[in-house]
């Protein structure tokens, strides 16, 4: 929309393109998935994707504004143009790609892992918690375990702590800080499972030019190594790099 306008305006008059240059790109995120995105002590959005998104906007010379939205309705609100991008730890999958478009991944394909309260927890056939409408929930639903879905990532971990679920299945990098700070209360169990095609920025299918703009900026950040620095800063040395 705004970019269709931008091109049309640029072709017509300089004045008109000056107006559209002030357009604000609204960036949707969940704000509940540290270290990808979360609300910090000051009540503002923070995290890997926020830092990356701001850098991408700076490189593309766009003015960006962050909006938080519940995970469940994050795609419907994007296609309804309530915001223009999604950066919310959203893995690139074929199902989602049918509804929206993704940029190239800015976070490499990684593994998802099981976390339980003890080593002998039954993560294979027991009750496994996962966030609703995620690739992890889809994976659990296919297996032998009973799936217990929650609206937020926090609740999936809480379900294991209070014994409602035998294990939680989520992105390894989300679970790592949780396990580290649990003081041995929570442990990784089973084998990690490679899932998804990395995390990319979601955009409307009709917004091809905005997608190209961000793709270019991501490529540039991959080439000059700044994306790798950011990945290491937020996820540690173990993280896969570009």
């Amino acid at each position, binding site marked *: *929309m705004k970019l269709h306008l931008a091109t049309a305006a640029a072709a017509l008059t300089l004045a008109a393109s000056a107006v559209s240059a002030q357009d604000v790109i609204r960036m949707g995120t969940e704000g509940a998935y540290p270290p990808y995105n979360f609300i910090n002590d000051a009540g503002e959005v923070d995290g890997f994707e926020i830092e990356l998104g701001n850098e991408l906007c700076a490189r593309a010379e766009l003015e960006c504004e962050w909006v938080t939205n519940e995970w469940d309705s994050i795609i419907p609100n994007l296609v309804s143009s309530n915001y223009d991008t999604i950066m919310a730890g959203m893995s690139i999958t074929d199902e989602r790609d049918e509804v929206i478009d993704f940029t190239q991944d800015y976070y490499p394909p990684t593994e998802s892992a099981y976390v339980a309260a003890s080593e002998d927890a039954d993560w294979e056939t027991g009750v496994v918690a996962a966030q609703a409408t995620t690739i992890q929930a889809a994976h659990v639903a296919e297996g032998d375990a009973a799936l217990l879905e929650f609206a*937020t990532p926090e609740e999936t971990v809480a379900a294991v702590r209070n014994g409602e679920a035998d294990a939680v299945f989520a992105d390894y990098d989300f679970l790592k800080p949780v396990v580290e700070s649990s003081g041995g209360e929570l442990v990784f169990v089973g084998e990690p499972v490679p899932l998804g095609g990395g995390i990319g920025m979601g955009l409307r299918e009709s917004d091809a030019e905005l997608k190209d703009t961000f793709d270019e900026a991501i490529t540039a950040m991959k080439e000059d190594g700044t994306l790798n620095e950011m990945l290491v800063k937020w996820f540690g040395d173990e993280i896969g790099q570009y």
Partner: protein
Amino acid sequence: MMPACTDPDALEGLAWLACYLTTGKHMAFYTSFGTVLLLLAITAPAALAFGFGGAVMARSRIAPVSWIGRTYIAIVRGVPDIAFFLFFVIALDQAFEWLRHQAKCPDWDQPIRQGNDFVVCAEAKLPLSTAPQWVHETYGFALAVLTFAIVFGAFAANVLYGAMRAVPRAQIETAEAYGMTERQTFRRILVPQMWVYALPGLSNLWMVLIKATPLLFLLGVRDIVYWARELGGTKTPQFTDYPHGDWRMWYFLALLVFYLAFTKVSEVVLARIMARLTKGQATAGGEAQRKAAA
């Protein structure tokens, strides 16, 4: 934040708690109580207006008007709230943008529906994407008020419709005997007397409305339940200066106290309104008041 809070790790006990409870995030939590109260303050009269309109339309003698009123009551009362809040708000927002698009961008040559996408011209966006964040938040809040008013208006319409029929026929006949027109009868006799019959139903609605405010988060407005969940969740030391375990129970306990206190105050106020409305009415309550005074 207070300057003493720069190094929370060194703090203990009450000092830590004082710093913790005054973080920017907690301030947002406290502000959200105001958001909820403001929503109630605007929604209640708006829903009452919708309800009054719906009731008047439903009992209209002109058939199409009556159908509209009855359809409104039947449809909204029949659809689950959560479905209404998820679907209706997006539809409402798109309807507004579509209307603005038709008015402002007649030369637009691209389809508005492109696959799954809903795309209108930049001038028709509501609010404009260049608008500051507070405009977006106010717009979201206004949509929330409108949706709540429509939903609760339908229930209020049904209550008021019943209340209008409950006013004793003798009262209406007397008014007619005095030569009042239909309009005068409605304004002077029917409406003033119906409230006493409507109030028990309306007070129920008010209580339900208070407890329905957490639906706000479905509309993108961060309310007290959202913040309680967010603040109470386990915080790991990597991402906050104030790590703690799962404290949701304490936050929800605080909400419980808030809601209980609020509904208690409501009950007291409603009881007083009821006593005032009962005065001089041809009801058992009014009769009891007369006997007590005599």
